[in-house]
């Protein structure tokens, strides 16, 4: 039985719980009040969302949803006070917590887990929704990719005609969601110079969504994202409403490109590396446009942006530094490896693999990552996390010299060992999975190197 309490009572109670959760050392306490609210009054989320004067927008994707949402926030923050789940709590409870703790917010901006999308959309009733990509990820948790795609199709079909839909045209399954919707906006890359020579090993949606024939790719950019056409039935990438052209990758620091729309184009200098972040910038910019932002606001916001929590973070440690890059599935990790290697291949790296629920309990995905270009440049590899030995095997069977692999399951010791091997003034590359990244954040916070994320998020 659920009580319908006056909203103000729920909110006060839930906020107290968040504070207690932090005091108890349970981390940011970012979902606890939302969970409590969901229990006390399941209809409260709908009412809180409906009370936002400028409505809400929702962002989902396998890869890049945190970064995309953070970029959109940077663009939109001058237009409206935002309720934004910045710390990455992206299930219904995380959205609820954000709504609770964002008093006076005008516009909701929420990243949402792929599997949670249908319910969040049903409850929050967003004005606009941005859908970025679908890659194989945590098969033990989500089931098969087709299942997630099918849930998205049904969620989109149930949206009112007025809801603005922003889709990545370069992903066949996602681009197809725009089919037949007049208010949809599509985005994608238009720079065949940067295409890969062929589809990567882990490419997922490479068969025509209509007839099952393998697509022909005029250009494949990231995984199965690209300019595709079915040789049998002609199903092809939809026309791009927003495109990135003349892209210049500049190592680990930035990428510069033309953000091209029907209203004109702007040269954008984005302070993030890699093609995958161009996709994130396009998703955020196109969403902001759907919410009424001008081209100048979009370009300025993109230019101001710096990395989202843990995705790409540089942390000074005395005379040395840490460079953290999150890895969580083959498509995302491939882009991290590609970006690292193109920015000057490191000679030492710490890779940390955990198998918590948030990482995926099934660690087989590391065998689908193209780690080889990274291994080729390494003189030493420190593997860490609960499944460190699995990573050691991944490297061993790639032909990496086992004498140059150090297995250090404890994260703190692995980082210390890595720093010990890093020359003065150098930077240690650390590639953690999600819970390992959280562990690293705790570690650097305990050592007083950075402020905790819930404070930064405030």
């Amino acid at each position, binding site marked *: 039985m659920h009580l319908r309490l006056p909203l103000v009572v729920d909110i006060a109670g839930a906020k107290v719980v968040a504070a207690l959760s932090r005091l108890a050392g349970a981390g940011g306490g970012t979902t606890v009040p939302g969970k409590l609210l969901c229990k006390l009054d399941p209809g409260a989320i709908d009412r809180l969302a409906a009370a936002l004067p400028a409505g809400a927008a929702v962002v989902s994707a396998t890869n890049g949803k945190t970064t995309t949402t953070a970029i959109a926030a940077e663009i939109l923050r001058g237009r409206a006070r935002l309720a934004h789940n910045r710390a990455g709590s992206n299930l219904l409870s995380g959205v609820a917590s954000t709504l609770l703790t964002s008093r006076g917010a005008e516009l909701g901006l929420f990243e949402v887990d792929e599997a949670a999308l249908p319910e969040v959309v049903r409850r929050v009733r967003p004005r606009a929704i941005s859908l970025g990509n679908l890659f194989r990820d945590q098969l033990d948790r989500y089931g098969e990719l087709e299942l997630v795609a099918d849930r998205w199709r049904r969620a989109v079909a149930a949206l009112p005609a007025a809801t603005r839909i922003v889709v990545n045209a370069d992903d066949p399954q996602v681009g197809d969601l725009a089919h037949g919707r007049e208010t949809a906006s599509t985005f994608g890359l238009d720079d065949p110079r940067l295409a890969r020579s062929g589809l990567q090993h882990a490419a997922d949606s490479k068969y025509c969504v209509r007839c099952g024939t393998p697509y022909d790719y005029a250009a494949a950019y990231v995984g199965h994202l690209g300019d595709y056409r079915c040789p049998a039935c002609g199903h092809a990438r939809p026309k791009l409403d927003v495109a990135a052209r003349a892209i210049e990758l500049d190592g680990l620091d930035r990428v510069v490109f033309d953000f091209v729309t029907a209203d004109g184009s702007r040269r954008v200098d984005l302070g993030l590396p890699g093609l995958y972040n161009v996709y994130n910038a396009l998703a955020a910019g196109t969403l902001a446009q759907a919410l009424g932002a001008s081209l100048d606001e979009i370009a300025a916001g993109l230019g101001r942006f710096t990395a989202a929590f843990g995705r790409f973070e540089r942390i000074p440690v005395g005379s040395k530094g840490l460079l953290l890059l999150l890895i969580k599935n083959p498509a995302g990790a491939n882009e991290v490896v590609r970006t690292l290697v193109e920015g000057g291949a490191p000679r030492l790296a710490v890779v940390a693999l955990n198998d918590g629920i948030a990482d995926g*309990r099934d660690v*087989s995905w590391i065998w689908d990552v193209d780690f080889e270009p990274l291994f080729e440049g390494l003189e030493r590899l420190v593997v860490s996390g609960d*499944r460190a*030995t699995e990573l050691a*095997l991944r490297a061993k069977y790639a032909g990496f010299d086992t004498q140059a692999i150090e297995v250090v399951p404890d994260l703190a010791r692995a980082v210390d060992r890595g720093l010990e091997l890093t020359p003065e003034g150098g930077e240690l590359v650390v590639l953690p999975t999600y819970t390992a990244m959280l562990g690293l954040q705790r570690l650097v916070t305990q050592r007083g190197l950075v402020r905790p994320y819930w404070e930064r998020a405030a």
Partner: protein
Amino acid sequence: MTTIRVAHLYPDYLNIYADRGNMAVLRRRAEWRGHELEITGLGMADSIVAGAHDLFYIGGGQDREQLLVAADLSSKAEPLIAAVEEGCALLAVCGGYQLLGRRYRGFHGEEMPGVGLLPLETVAGEGRLIGNVLLECEVEPGLRRTLAGFENHAGRTLLDPRARPLGRVVCGYGNDGESGWEGCRLKGAVGTYLHGPLLPRNPWLADWLLARALAHRSGGEPTALEPLLDELEAGAHAVSAGRAQAGGGAAAVRRWPRRARPAGS
């Protein structure tokens, strides 16, 4: 030096659970003994030539990919069965394992023809069987060894009474979550739900398959391969086995809401 000829069936379609990890293990462990692996991908239009291969590999896929390959694979039944009959080694994982039986009925009722190599049938059921698994096997009489892996399948596989399972489930679900058996073995052919991938943390099975393939190539009886230093492999096996023992599959049954059932491999 012997060249072991490997046929990798449908590498573009059936590769969902890091099947290339299994291929890498076979390749390296052959190389470390001074042999060489020659891997040929066999796709839709390719036929299996009698005597051209020593080892076959079939990986896992989703229902969608299984539907795309099932008819083609079953048209290759005759040469595939003949190859196993005359001593070839074969490893089939998850979706590939299911298609080696007589039939597979997918989650939405799709009937797929099987190869009929292994004496079993598979029907997708409610709820996926997901989690870490530990098996005890006696592939060579008197020698009990364990296999540690991860399973994720909707299919319930029922072995015929005369069929020989790959192993006994110590922790996890196995073929159907009830019988206590996992996988199926027939001569040098092994079918299993275990991925992870399977071979890196279970190198003894890789060596067993390689020994059979080498014997097929050279025309003799399988002989034990020169041992390798498998410390990292043993470490990974121990962690994986520990995961299965600490709760493994049994705690992790997934009941999906009626309207959102997963397609199952």
